[in-house]
């Protein structure tokens, strides 16, 4: 067995030199000689074309998608909240409420309706906890006025602070609203660094950006088209508007 372990150690060392030294360094050499710009991260004058930056609070710019990790390249990732994350916990809003709140905010910013299915007008998840003879709008803490007055003949109450409603049946209420704000504007990306927004979200923002900059909207839309990345070979991936490249171009 000692001999076998000796062989194992030597095998690992040799393979480490080959696969862990030679291989990555040769790839590095080829990459840096032939594809320098891409290998260094497709850098623009300010940042990387592939890494989203935060433009929140600057209406003169197109806004990136929401990021679950604050556009921080040192801790990338998603919210990882599930598709039925609908009940808020103090300090930890549910995914549904996050979607509703973003929709309301984007709607106000762009001057369109921020309403969506399963959202209250106040921008939280429209979710009831149903008990025998008692119904609570669980995401609306008192003294809020619940988004609906009664459910199946029972008065809907606001949520008392410090009360646990875990035992109740969870009933999200769809409501009659339809969405105007596109889905990618109200959901966080997988990486937290998604450099793109959908063409629809870019079109929605074009009017505001044009107004803020005092430029004709057609001109802004033309820039949006110029910075729309199309799928490779026509079908690999989905089209998306590169926010950073577009914004830098606007400033030029």
């Amino acid at each position, binding site marked *: 067995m000692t001999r076998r372990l000796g062989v194992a150690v030597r095998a690992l060392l040799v393979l480490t030199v080959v696969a862990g030294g030679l291989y990555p360094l040769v790839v590095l050499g080829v990459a840096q000689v032939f594809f320098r710009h891409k290998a260094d991260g497709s850098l623009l004058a300010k940042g990387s074309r592939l890494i989203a930056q935060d433009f929140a609070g600057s209406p003169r710019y197109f806004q990136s998608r929401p990021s679950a990790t604050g556009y921080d390249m040192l801790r990338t990732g998603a919210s990882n909240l599930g598709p039925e994350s609908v009940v808020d916990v103090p300090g930890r809003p549910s995914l*549904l409420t996050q979607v509703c709140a973003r929709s309301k905010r984007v709607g106000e910013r762009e001057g369109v309706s921020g309403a969506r299915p399963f959202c209250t007008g106040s921008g939280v998840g429209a979710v009831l906890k149903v008990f025998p003879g008692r119904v609570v709008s669980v995401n609306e803490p008192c003294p809020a006025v619940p988004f609906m007055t009664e459910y199946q003949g029972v008065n809907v109450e606001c949520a008392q602070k410090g009360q646990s409603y875990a035992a109740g049946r969870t009933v999200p209420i769809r409501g009659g609203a339809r969405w105007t704000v596109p889905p990618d504007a109200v959901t966080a990306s997988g990486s937290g660094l998604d450099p793109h927004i959908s063409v629809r979200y870019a079109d929605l923002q074009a009017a505001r950006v044009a107004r803020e900059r005092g430029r004709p909207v057609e001109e802004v839309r033309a820039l949006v088209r110029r910075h729309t990345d199309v799928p490779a070979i026509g079908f690999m991936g989905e089209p998306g508007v590169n926010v950073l490249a577009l914004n830098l171009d606007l400033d030029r």
Partner: protein
Amino acid sequence: MTALTLVVVLALLYRPLGDHIHRVYSGTSDTRAERLTYRLLGVAPRREQRWPGYARSVLAFSLVSILFLYVFQRVQNHLFLSLGFPPVTDHVAWNTAVSFVTNTNWQSYAGENTMGHLVQMSGLAVQNFVSAAVGLAVAMALVRGFARSGSTTIGNFWADLVRGTYRILLPLAFAGAVLLVAGGVVQNLAGPHEVPAALGGTTTLTGGPVASQEAVKQLGTNGGGFYAANSAHPWENPNGWTNWLANLLMLLIPVALPRAFGRMVGQNRQGYALAAVVAVIAVASVVLTNVFELRAAATVPQAAGMAMEGKEVRFGLSESATFAASTTLTSTGAVNAAHDSFTPLGGMMTMVNMMLGEVAPGGVGSGLYGLLILAVITVFVAGLMVGRTPEYLGKKIAAREIKLASLYFLVTPVLVLTGTALALANRAGLAGMLNTGPHGLSEVLYAFASAANNNGSAFAGLTTGTPWWDVALGVAMLVGRFVPIVFVLALAGSLARQTPVPSSAGTLPTHRPQFVGLVVGVTVVVVALTFLPALALGPLAEGVGG
């Protein structure tokens, strides 16, 4: 469309790549690099091993690898290219060492703020190569068991390890890495550094040797991302082309292996039959995952209008769903979207794919040996129906063989179900869940399914960088990898000793559609019976209850 082109390209590569693999493991000549390597190792590549010797070599190599990788992470602050990161904590280092050596690549750390470039490049990425080569070696040893007659030996592990690495993995990974860089994946040695930001001030970028690692991460069905966001990260997977290529790379070797098997046993049609099993299950799974994600049947996806939470605009719904299916059908575990935020049934598909035992097409090597074990179980079941001693490729499946095959298949369910139960029964286990209710259970179930089947993807809301989770999942990965390998090698040994019996009128033909259907049936039934109760409490409760 993407899935369709992948199928076409894989079908075109099935024969040439499968034939190449067959030549690599049956050939009798060595390249100059290999001869030098054998001299350095002090092994005689033609000296054949019996199965216990082969198994001991696999275990010795893996043990040394785990220790080395553990120490490597613990002393990284003393080495160059550490980017100033401190030593990795003991439980994370243990989990990561086991994870990469077992070809799982479960990640309880975030690459960009934990691992220096040297550990990534010369520690983790090396295991991406050699853990895949170990899987290939074990699969080839089992195939030799079927192909040989009256033989006491099943090959030489060291020769198989070196050949697989030098002649299959390295050339393909190199080609893949160059194509990925050309597509926009980064490859440099820059650490975290500040650059001017668009709104003034600065923003931090952090590069690294990403493309070289990304290529072998997919090719070796490893899945451990350079960055925490894995293949959702725009520097690791910048566009539709790199995404398509990544998808191809992870399917490439596992899909071609049935061909190599067919060649080695001298009956290509046996390879086609297994490839057909893979195709039936994989196509069904990809289609279903796509349907579930596009339907968006759950509250938040309905509110958002599309199941876009945790997905990237450049991939959209379909390429995220297809990638999720491929990464769990193979044992890769790379993710280009957050599986935790998938619709309940879409998320369930990724779990079911892993619970199938990673056979459609499964991991590099491990997929083929899993399939062959399933084929053995199928001929046994069929033999029981007609009351004959079952045989596969002329080898009798008697008591010893079927015991080994059954034991193989019991390992992962035992790990998944007891692991999940243990996690739910103690506070340290429960503390990891991000989501509540059925979805919390799904997170735990997913974690153990992923670890025990050596997949490595996650419902990543689960916080697992804690001592309990790191140790528990480490044990699940270790047992889930090496106990089945020992059973496979024991089976290889006992098959190799047999001389094949000529087939007769009563022999079940194992190359016809009937047999393909039987294997698919056995696979699905075994999984359904084992995991349905757990799935009912998790994703099904969430998806159907609402």
